[in-house]
């Protein structure tokens, strides 16, 4: 089977200005959502108590809420988790109390009104630990960018490097925007997924760049735009195949991986779509607008070599 029997020649770069506008609107929207609503951080980052409980029958969330209110935990967040029988209770740390005892008290309060509740999971994260995890997460993102930038810079050329980095920035912003709009819980696995997306998106970009570099050397006559278009077209069926297989496995995770991985698989799903898009319409397009030419990619002739060859 072939997606494209003949060589394709879609003029990707011709429409790039239009896609810049689309990207800009999306990025702005995501940033606005982040600014306005912020992320719904999980207790990994805020500290707090999470209890996951399994009820014998479908749980009556109102009843759980009222029994918590009676025990003095009115501001606890109660939500169903995956199935109607599974319930997640989330609360922020209380200043001055032992959070470990808090978890127990909350459970006791729920069990008094709902016999037969099984505690499946508890997580108690101190506020300070949460802050540290958040700090480490931010550092991880920064370092990932730094090292990848360094690598792309070394292996390719700064114009391509800029394109790759802007694309790699573009993708996490999209994902974060999605989390801000939906107010889905942003936890540690979701952060890990974002870093994986940065890797994946660059993976995609680098494959296209690799072809661009190769084409610039062989297609001496074409304009930069023609060369880039040809490169994207030549890698197009690969792009579709890889995105599809990765997407399918990530969808398997999204549907079968359970609630705990929900944030992780959602972030990856968005990341694969956005990452594929950005390697064409952000990374390559930017490189073109930075006036990438064949000369940028030709191997530099070092004068020293000539001297060395002399007897």
């Amino acid at each position, binding site marked *: *089977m*072939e997606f494209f*029997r003949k*060589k394709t020649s879609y003029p990707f770069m011709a429409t790039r200005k239009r896609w810049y506008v689309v990207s800009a609107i999306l990025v702005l929207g995501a940033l606005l959502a982040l600014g306005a609503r912020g992320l719904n951080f999980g207790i990994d980052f805020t500290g707090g108590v999470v209890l996951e409980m399994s009820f014998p029958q479908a749980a009556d969330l109102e009843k759980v809420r009222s029994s918590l209110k009676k025990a003095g935990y009115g501001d606890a967040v109660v939500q169903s988790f995956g199935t109607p029988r599974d319930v997640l209770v989330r609360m922020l740390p209380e200043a001055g109390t032992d959070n*470990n005892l808090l978890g*127990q008290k909350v459970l006791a309060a729920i069990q008094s009104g709902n016999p037969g509740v*099984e*505690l*499946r*999971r*508890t*997580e*108690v*994260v*101190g506020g300070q630990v949460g802050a540290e*995890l958040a700090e*480490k*997460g931010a550092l*991880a993102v920064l*370092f*990932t960018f730094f*090292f*990848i930038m360094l*690598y*792309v810079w070394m292996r390719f050329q700064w114009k391509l490097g800029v394109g790759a980095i802007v694309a790699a920035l573009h993708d996490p912003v999209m994902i974060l925007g999605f989390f801000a709009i939906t107010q889905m819980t942003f936890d*540690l*696995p979701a*952060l*890990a997924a974002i*870093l*994986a997306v940065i*890797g*994946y998106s*660059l*993976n995609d970009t*680098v*494959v296209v760049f*690799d*072809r661009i570099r*190769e084409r610039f050397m062989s297609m001496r006559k074409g304009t930069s735009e023609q060369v880039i278009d040809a490169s994207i077209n030549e*890698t197009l069926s*690969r792009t579709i*195949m*890889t995105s*599809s*297989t*990765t*997407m*399918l*496995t*990530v969808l*398997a*995770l999204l549907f*079968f*991986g*359970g609630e*705990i*991985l929900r944030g*992780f*698989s959602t972030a990856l799903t968005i990341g694969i779509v956005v990452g594929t898009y950005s390697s064409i319409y952000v990374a390559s397009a930017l490189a073109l607008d930075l006036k990438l030419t064949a000369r940028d990619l030709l191997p530099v002739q070092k004068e020293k070599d000539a001297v060395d060859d002399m007897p």
Partner: protein
Amino acid sequence: MHSYPAWKIWLVVIVLLVGTLLALPNVFGEAPALQLSRNDRTAVTAAQQQQVVSTLQSRGVTVDSSYLEGDRLVLRFDDVGTRLKARDVVQQGTGTEYLVALSDVPRTPAWMRAIGLKPMSLGLDLRGGVYFMYEVDTQGAVKQLLTSMESDYRTMLRKERIPFTGVASDGVDTVRIGLRSGDDAQRFASLLRKQDPNLSVDVDTLGEGGSVTVTLSPTQVKQRQDFAIQQNITTLRNRVDELGVTEPIVARQGLDRIVVQLPGVSDPNEALRVLGATATLEFRLVDDQNDALLAESTRRAPLGSKLYHTRDGRPVLLKRETIVSGEQLTDASSGFQQGEPAVMVTLDARGASKMLETTRQNLGRPMAVVFIEKKRVAEDQPCKGTRAGNECTEEAVINQATIRGVFGSNFQITGVMANEARELALLLRAGSLAAPLYIVEQRTVGPSLGADNIRRGVNALVLGLVVTFIFMVVYYQAFGMVANVVLLTNVVLLAALLSMLQASLSLPGIAGIVLTVGMAVDANILIFERIREELRNGMSPHAAIGAGFDKAFSAIADSNITTLIAGVVLFTFGTGPVRGFAVVLSLGIVTSMFTALVVSRVLVHLLWGRQRKLEKLAIGMGY
């Protein structure tokens, strides 16, 4: 014809064989088991193993398999019912000889175990268990040191008959001693310097009186803090052993944190209580004039004595007056004294002078070491000792020895077995310090959730594999099959590496495997697309294969390295499950590069490369 070096084919064969062997232990699943460790912490011997097994068999309990692992005896059973029966038999038959822990062990055959093959180790979110992160109050540990320095100095000043106005520490790193005159200050300072030349001692003789300031150097403060953490880890390890948990992890994390992982424990509160207990020691003289058994039966101790029990329940009478208590203990270590195992103990000045006096007067008489433990217990929890509200105090005589000579600050406790000595030193150290611990993070996963998580992860993995298989075969036909075989070997090699490294696999780790499956075919896709391109450009099939592999290489390498960078950074900064994801992601990149570049090339070579006449390739092109 397309040539390919034979050594590469052999390399692939060897790697695949070794990989399969390493990954093999994962297919056997787990069986219910009992883990027996001896209460006196000696290793279980083969004879004891024989004895336990035959006892069980005589009671009609079938032991599926039994083997020694480290110091422990592992008994494996066919089902949970048999295990419970076996536990009752062991506990009735041997009393308190063994600590019995329930666990699930892999069903790997004996020969695999013998050569050290193990299945992947599962993280807490997959097998259920408790995770604690403690923070050690290192500031408190330094304060304790300063307090004991204060009292030492007071004792010294009194002994030397130097009048003083006050001894006070700032609780951070300094002790200041106020004296009546400058001369006294000079004299005391030189005494201090003589006692410990490493100490930074400043003398101030301005004004009416004089003062001496002792300051701990940053190194000394840090040493003390490290010491506190090390001791707390030791204490926690002991306590964890006491819980009878199999494969626990107690490890330092960062500057002042300790992580404790207890797989299989479902009630964090019991664990918290035991781990949070504080322990201390007392040295007392043994009352050998009166009959301890009599005192026990009449429940009345003679005047001036108190009834204690040893750990195995024998009654002992001890003098009411303590010689030295745990706060005066500064260090303990185990070693040998004239070929005999011994515990070396160091006391502070106050304890030392008291000990000197006592031993001088009581040569040849026995002295006992009492281990006192305070635990937090709930209202309905049993307490073996005395209880005051929620606090339970347990006292036990852990050692009795005859005083053979006069000693002061440093002395040995002999008459113990080698591992007892080690244990005693551990306990002494553990008891001598109780730098406060605070829990800053706690995660508990119930066993049913763990099983659910495994099921979900495996389902997602199988589904991901099947869908990818179909996709590849439909699109690339015979080459798609090659890619699928390569993908399978990739999963096997990844499992082999994870089993070999024994890195714990978490749910995000399984997610990493699933993601790797999706991304690993990318390398083959790049190669196959390249081969197709070369064929379209009119190259011969053999040349196209060679060119496809060669030209795809730089794209594969560059694109994988960027993902590898993300993986390594994630590993460096990540904690817990996220770290597991990073390990899998990084290893997955390594294995997928190897399998795609080398294994698939060997397969392609074996299938097509040796055909002299190759008209076309079954790579899914429409011709």
